[in-house]
């Protein structure tokens, strides 16, 4: 008996995988540091049509804190959307590790920790606005009454309560995108992933939605990852900006945006704002 116990003691530490240990340590760090998303040396290599390997992303390492507003900024081909899609579990990185709240992106997705907002609102045109927001709740078999109440609450949050029974085609582009945000929030995910959500809107609507998005963010305390190619947009919205450069896609700088909050449109006229914009612009490499 003693012999067996002794044997266990000796062999157990050896059998443990070193990676597993690393994972455990990083999980402990998560709890302590309030880290929501941990990217460790993430890389992505595609096989192109003619058999060559195309590097979309090389060794991205960074931590994203709970409740943080992060922008992934860069020109096309810099891998910003690739990085978002890796976090969303839509594609798997060819190297490196991703941990979302201590679990893999797949587990995080299955636990419905993400809300997705796309460039086009991607509403279901056969469903009314309220039914669109109820859609994710239907998927999770939320009872009918609660479903309606929660959807109405979300609609209220984006300021479209009066349009509950309209069909998407009856709404303007900006309103449609707000419905998209409400739908993404319906399952109360911790993380909101936004892939150039405002790039198809006109400048006036976009500025209004920036302010609205910051209000929603403050009310809900989500972690937001916001993909964009618009420098002003990223400076206005973010806590931190991840500047990604192309050929090959890589993280070339992380810039802290220490502008005071809550931010209003006026902040865009301050010298601090302009200085940050040029700082971000100068941090690009090889564009």
């Amino acid at each position, binding site marked *: 008996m003693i012999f067996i116990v002794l044997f266990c003691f000796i062999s157990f530490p050896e059998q443990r995988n070193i990676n597993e240990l690393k994972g455990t340590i990083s999980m402990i760090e998560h709890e302590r540091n309030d880290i929501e998303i941990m990217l460790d040396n993430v890389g992505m290599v595609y096989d192109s049509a003619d058999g060559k390997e195309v590097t979309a992303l090389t060794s991205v390492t960074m931590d994203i804190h709970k409740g943080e507003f992060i922008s992934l900024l860069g020109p096309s081909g810099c891998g910003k959307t690739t990085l978002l899609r890796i976090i969303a579990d839509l594609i798997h990185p060819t190297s490196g590790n991703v941990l979302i709240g201590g679990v893999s992106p797949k587990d995080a*997705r299955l636990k419905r920790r*993400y809300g997705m907002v796309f460039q086009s609102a991607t509403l*279901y045109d*056969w469903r009314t606005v309220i039914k669109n927001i109820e859609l*994710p709740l239907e998927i999770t078999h939320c009872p009918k009454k609660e479903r309606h109440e929660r959807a109405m609450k979300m609609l209220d949050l984006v300021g479209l309560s009066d349009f509950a029974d*309209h069909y998407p*085609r*009856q709404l303007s582009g900006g309103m449609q995108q707000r419905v998209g945000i409400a739908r993404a929030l319906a399952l109360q995910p911790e993380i909101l992933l936004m892939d150039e959500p405002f790039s198809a809107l006109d400048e006036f609507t976009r500025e209004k939605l920036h302010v609205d998005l910051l209000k929603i963010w403050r009310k809900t305390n989500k972690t937001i990852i916001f993909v964009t190619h618009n420098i002003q947009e990223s400076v206005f919205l973010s806590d931190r900006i991840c500047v990604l450069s192309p050929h090959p896609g890589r993280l070339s700088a992380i810039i802290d945006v220490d502008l005071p909050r809550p931010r209003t449109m006026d902040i865009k006229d301050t010298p601090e704002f302009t200085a940050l914009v040029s700082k971000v612009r100068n941090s690009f490499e090889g564009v």
Partner: protein
Amino acid sequence: MKKLKKLLTSKFFITIVWVVMLIAVWELFAFHVENIKRTPENVQPHLSGIVDSLTSDRKINGSQTALQMVIENAKATLTRAGIGYIIGIASGFLLALFMSLSKIVEKTSFPYLMLIQLIPILGMAPIINAITGDIAKSRIIIAAILTFYPVATNTLAGFKSVQREKHELMYSYAANKFQIYTKTMIPACIPYFFTGLKISAPMAITASILVDTLQGGIGLGCLLSQSLKGAMTRYVFWDIVFFSAVIGILSFYIMGIIEIMMCPYRRTGKR
């Protein structure tokens, strides 16, 4: 001036112009034929003659007027066309569903589906008749086969039209296959499905009438060939031609109306 332009381009006005023009051209030829032929109704009778034959209460086969005969036979033909149509819709939709669920099914069946369209109905009918041994059954099957192709291809196109983002959205909700189909794929393909229905409704009816002519019995096509062979007045033939044209067009519009009823989102508000 603006009002006039609006009237001239309105759908109603254009339809009226077309109808009047068709009647004028028809009558012009009818007058011409009347002058050069001894039996003008064999080539092109006056429209008034056709209307007369429908409204007259002269019994043509001893017990029925022309209109009663046409309606009785139409019932049989349309019932067969209807049953075939429904079978065709169901199988077309199911195959499209399987093709969208499995790449293998799609790769192995889709390219060859087109062959069905290439075989002439009149060539296919005797074969099917030989297999089933029953002309009524084969008439139903032919209508089903012709319905099947447009429904299957259009429904598949509908499944494929779903944006990538919608798939990604369902993926992010961790939706299962059943939910993906009931919430996204099937509602999205409904307009395409109805395009298939609208194309195939007149086809099912035409095919039914055509296959009727192959053998006797009751049916519009049977009556039509009897009339052509001189078993009864030639006007019955013209009655059937016009009657089936109207039914064909109506079937298209009925499908359109059902579509609008089923898809309220397509009719409300601005584009």
